[in-house]
């Protein structure tokens, strides 16, 4: 039961981190940047990480700048902790293979940078933009999926936390808390289907923020310059 209790706390903590690093803060101007630009930024960071150790550090710096300059400093703390989970795992599991702390640390920096950059990408993309683009591309049938996912995931995570808290209070096995969350989600899917069916037509509207698009474009330019210089040097 003690291991179950610790595991339960860990799952609850991880759920809270996901909620705080992706979902809890409302819409803001920095979430009104074209998704293609956000994707380009992520790709340049991935390329930098793959180039060299210096590239990794530049990518990490670029990711930190993304959070700071795009008004998401308060999310950085939670995203960093969340990114640390796979990072620590990779550090521990790579040690027996590399037999070198320095090499393992290099892998660790890469994993942390990629995790943080991916979280930043997920934080800054806007599901309304995805739905808007799908609608423009005549994909109306599927345009509800990204918005409903963004809406439903934190709701489910919150219920998971509540179910696990109750399982701890009742001193019952962790799986019982997980099982009732699954049953609840099944009930939710039925309710969502009912409620969404009899609602009006979904016509997403969206706008772009020129200021934040310019900031993101600058970050992409910096990364591209770094890629060019690193390729020139090495």
């Amino acid at each position: 039961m003690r291991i179950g209790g610790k595991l339960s706390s860990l799952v609850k903590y991880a759920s809270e981190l996901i909620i705080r690093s992706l979902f809890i803060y409302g819409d803001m101007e920095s979430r009104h940047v074209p998704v293609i630009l956000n994707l380009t930024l992520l790709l340049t960071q991935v390329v930098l990480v793959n180039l060299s150790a210096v590239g990794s550090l530049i990518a990490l710096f670029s990711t930190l700048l993304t959070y700071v300059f795009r008004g998401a400093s308060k999310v950085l703390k939670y995203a960093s902790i969340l990114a640390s989970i796979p990072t620590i795992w990779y550090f521990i599991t790579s040690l027996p293979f590399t037999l070198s702390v320095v090499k393992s640390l290099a892998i660790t920096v890469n994993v942390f940078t990629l995790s943080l950059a991916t979280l930043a990408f997920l934080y800054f993309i806007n599901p309304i933009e995805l739905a808007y683009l799908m609608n423009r591309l005549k994909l109306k049938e599927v345009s509800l999926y990204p918005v409903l996912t963004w809406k439903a995931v934190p709701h489910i995570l919150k219920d998971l936390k509540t179910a696990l808290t109750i399982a701890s209070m009742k001193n019952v096995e962790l799986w019982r808390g997980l099982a009732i969350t699954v049953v609840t989600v099944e009930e939710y899917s039925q309710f969502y289907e009912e409620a969404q069916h009899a609602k009006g037509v979904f016509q997403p509207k969206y706008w772009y923020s020129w200021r934040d698009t310019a900031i993101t474009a600058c970050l992409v330019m910096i990364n591209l310059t770094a890629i060019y210089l690193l390729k020139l040097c090495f």
Partner: protein
Amino acid sequence: MTFELNGFTVRLDGALIVNEVDLSLSRGEAVLIAGPSGAGKSTLLKSLCGVIPKVVRGSVSGFVKPSLDFLHRSSIYLHQEPWFFITTPYVWSEVLSFTDFKRLSDVQEVLNHFKLSRHLMRSTYTLSAGEVQRLAFIIATHSSKDLILLDEPTAYLDRPNADNLIKYVKELKGFGKSFIIVDHDVSVWLDVVDKVYYMVDGKLVEDEPEYYSKAYEALNDLDPSESRDCLKHFIFEVDEIKFPDAEEPLLKDFKLEVCSGEVVLIKGYSGVGKTTLLKTLAEKSVKDGRIKSVLIPDNPLLYFSGSTPAEELNLANPQLSSKFLQDFGLSSKSNIPVVKLSTGERRRLALASALARGYELVFMDEPTIGLDPWNKYLVLKGIKKVAELGTGFVIASHDEDLLKIANEVINLEDWR
């Protein structure tokens, strides 16, 4: 929007749920349908808007003028659980995507009418139940549909917000919108609706069933537990409580003392932070570990560890499980899955389980939401029964009927 139903019948899994209903509605009219849980009220609304048979399998028959297809196209149905009606992650996008509003300033204006304007850019997931209900109402009433089907639209609202919503329905009638409203509280709608019906065993009747007066009489006879014993009490001290996305704290230096057998009610307008406070206290209690306590959330399904009432109570107290099932009126439901229980039955089962497990303190969130007067009475009686056996309760709710069994009331509005 004018329509007429004659002999309208709905069957689900072969069972007769709506039985030969006759109903007509003209443009700008509103009717209210009350009645006990399970009588078929929601099923009627769902079949008028097409959820039955298009989403939920069932058969619909009877005469519909102009046609059932026309009704499906002209109606919008506001689900009794408003969370599931909300589609998008932000307040602004929800209103702009599902209504005819073109500009954010128009959205701001309508949000302002429902005291939601400061939430324009907020994540819909972080709204309180009452705020979600008001947002869902805005969507339902500002769509292009002329027939608006409202399923318990005031369940999560405090009195002033409920009054504001009801007044708005009255205004919209003047613009030609028609309403069918399902609600347990008839009195609050009397000034607005043109007709009141009661649904009993799938049939619509005009006279108030005896059931209602009996339920209200029983509710009025409730009084607080007299077994409060302050020699044994629990103290909670909270330095600060904050909504995770807020700058300012919700509460500072909050102290709560709960005696054994006492019912403490935390009340306040929707969005004031009742649930946040309750969950914080429950988490504090888990961390502290000295008090044997449990949380029964507003969705009581999350409370259960067993798949059936019998299993839930066997896990708690195998010797006395059948006695608890009987005491809480659940004997006939002992072996059906908990997901098949009604909300009232789920709440009573959670109470029976809490009693069987011998908790010293129970945190309960909105225990009477969506319950008809008789089920509400049964749940309140259940709480009182458990309190009289020495369990303390901390309950977060805006329902004034809970004042009947509360020994102490904390109004969160006084703390802000």
